[in-house]
C-alpha cells in the first residue's frame, strides 16, 4: 500500500504522521467517500469511526482504517454537522454512521439513518447531548463525578 499517495488523492493539506499507535492524517475538508474508495482500492478495511464534539457546533470524525495491519486514522471535520455517507461505498459503515447519528445527531447525507440504540421517543443526539458543548454549557471539564 502506497501511503504517500493518499494525502494528495484526498486533498489533505499535510502528510501522514507516524505515531507509536498508528498513522494519523488530518484532512478536515476531505470527502469521506473519495477517501473510502482510495483506501478500499488499496485493500484497506474500515475498522470504525470516532466522532467528537468540536467548536462551532461541528464535529471531528476520525475514520479508522486497517491497511495491511497498520492502523490508519484520518480525521475529517463535519460541514454543518453533516458529512457524505460512506455506507454506499463500504457497508461496514452502516451501523457506525447510525450510532454516531444516535449520539451526536451528525447527519450522513445520502442515506436513511434509522436509530440503532435510541429508545422510542428519543431524538437523534440524545445519547451524546452532554458531550456537546453547545448543550451542556457547564459540560465536561475533566472533573470526575464520583
Amino acid at each position, binding site marked *: 500500500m502506497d501511503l504517500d499517495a493518499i494525502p494528495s488523492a484526498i486533498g489533505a493539506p499535510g502528510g501522514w504522521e507516524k505515531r507509536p*499507535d498508528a498513522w494519523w492524517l488530518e484532512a478536515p475538508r476531505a470527502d469521506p467517500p473519495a477517501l473510502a474508495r482510495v483506501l478500499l482500492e488499496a485493500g484497506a478495511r474500515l*475498522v*470504525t469511526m*470516532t466522532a467528537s464534539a468540536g467548536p462551532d457546533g461541528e464535529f471531528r470524525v476520525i475514520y479508522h482504517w*486497517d491497511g495491511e495491519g497498520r492502523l490508519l486514522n484520518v480525521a475529517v471535520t463535519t460541514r454543518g454537522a453533516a458529512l457524505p455517507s460512506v455506507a454506499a461505498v463500504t457497508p461496514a459503515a452502516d451501523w457506525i454512521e447510525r450510532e454516531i447519528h444516535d449520539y451526536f445527531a451528525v447527519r450522513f447525507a445520502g442515506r436513511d439513518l434509522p436509530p440503532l440504540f435510541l429508545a422510542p421517543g428519543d431524538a437523534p443526539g440524545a445519547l451524546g447531548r452532554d458531550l456537546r458543548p453547545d448543550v451542556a454549557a457547564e459540560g*465536561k*471539564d*475533566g472533573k470526575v463525578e464520583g
Partner: protein
Amino acid sequence: MSYTVPLGPYHPALEEPCRIDLDCEGETVRGAEIRLKFNFRGVEWLAERKNFIQAVALIERVCGICSNVHAMTFCRALETLAGVDVPERARHIRLVVAELERVTSHLLWTGLAAEIMGFQTLFMACFALRERAMDVLEGLSGNRVNYGMNRVGGVTRDIADPGAIRSEVLRLREETLKKIAPVFLDDRTVRARCAGIGVLSGDLARAWGAVGPTARASGVPQDIRKAAPYEAYGRLDFHVPLETAGDVNARVVVRLLELIETYGLLEQALGTMPGGPLAGPEFVEIPAGEATARSEAPRGECFYYVAAGGAEAPLRVKIRTPSFVNMPLVAAMVRGANLADVPLINASIDPCYSCTCR
C-alpha cells in the same frame, strides 16, 4: 404468503436484549432486521466522567465474558498516551490472562452451540471443562469474571507459580482433544446440523469488515495478534486457523482449532515467563493527546480510542467491539435459510449483546 416472525428479546431461542424480525415465506427466511434498542448502557459516556483509574474498572464491565481484553486494550491506549513502557513479565501475564479468557469464551460458545443443536451431553462436557478454566483464572486473580489484572503500566498481580498453571493448561488441552474436539470436528450429526447453513462468503466478510473467527471461517486471514503483534505475541509461535466454506460448520472448526492453538500459546508463555517488575510507577499522569489501541478478543478485533485533555478524566472514549461489526452480517447469513436454523446461525458468530450495547 409472507409473514414476520419476531425472534427475541423474550424468546426461548434468543434470551438476549435483541430482536430479529424475520420476514418469512413458509419456512424460508427472505430477510431480517436486527433491533438493539433494549439495553444501551452508555459506558463511553460514563467513562468520560470517571478518573482514569476508575475508568479501567468500569471498562472491564463492558463484557461479562471478554472483560479482560477491554481493560487491557484501554490500558494500552493510555500507555501510548503517557509514553509508558510495560515490563516484559507484565506483558507475558497479560497474554496469559487474555488467552485463558479465550479458552473460557470459546468453551462457553461451544457449550451454547451444543445446547442449541440439542446435544445436551456435549453442552455439559464443554461447561464442565470451562469451569476448570475459570478455576485457573480464579486462582490467578481471585475472580471468575472481572479479573482486575490490568492497570496503566502493567498488571496488578503476579503469576507466582507458572509451572502449576502450565500443568493445568496441559490437562485442559488433553481433555479438549479427547472429549470436545472429536465431537465437533468428526461427529456426523454435528456436521449435518452445521454444514451448509448460514454461509458468509469471503467477499461479503471483507465488504462488511468482519472480524475474528467469523472472518477467518470465510477465508479472511485477519488476526490482530499476527497483523499488529502486541504484548508478547510477536515472540511466540502460533498458527491462525483458516477455513473457507463460510458456513456454521467452518465457524465451529475455526474456534476448535483456535482453542488448541491457544493452549499452545499458554504453554509457551508460561514456560518462558521472564523475571522483573509487574508494573511501573503506581500513578501515571495522562497528558493531553489522543491514542488508539487494538487487541484480538475471542470474538475478533477490539478497538479503543481515548482522548485526554490533561485532566483527571478522559475527554472521549470510543469502544468498538467485535460483535458490533459481526452482528449486522447475521441478516445476510439467514437470508434463504430455514427458519429453524436461525438460532444456530445467529449463535455461530458468538454474538455478545453486552459488548454491542456497551
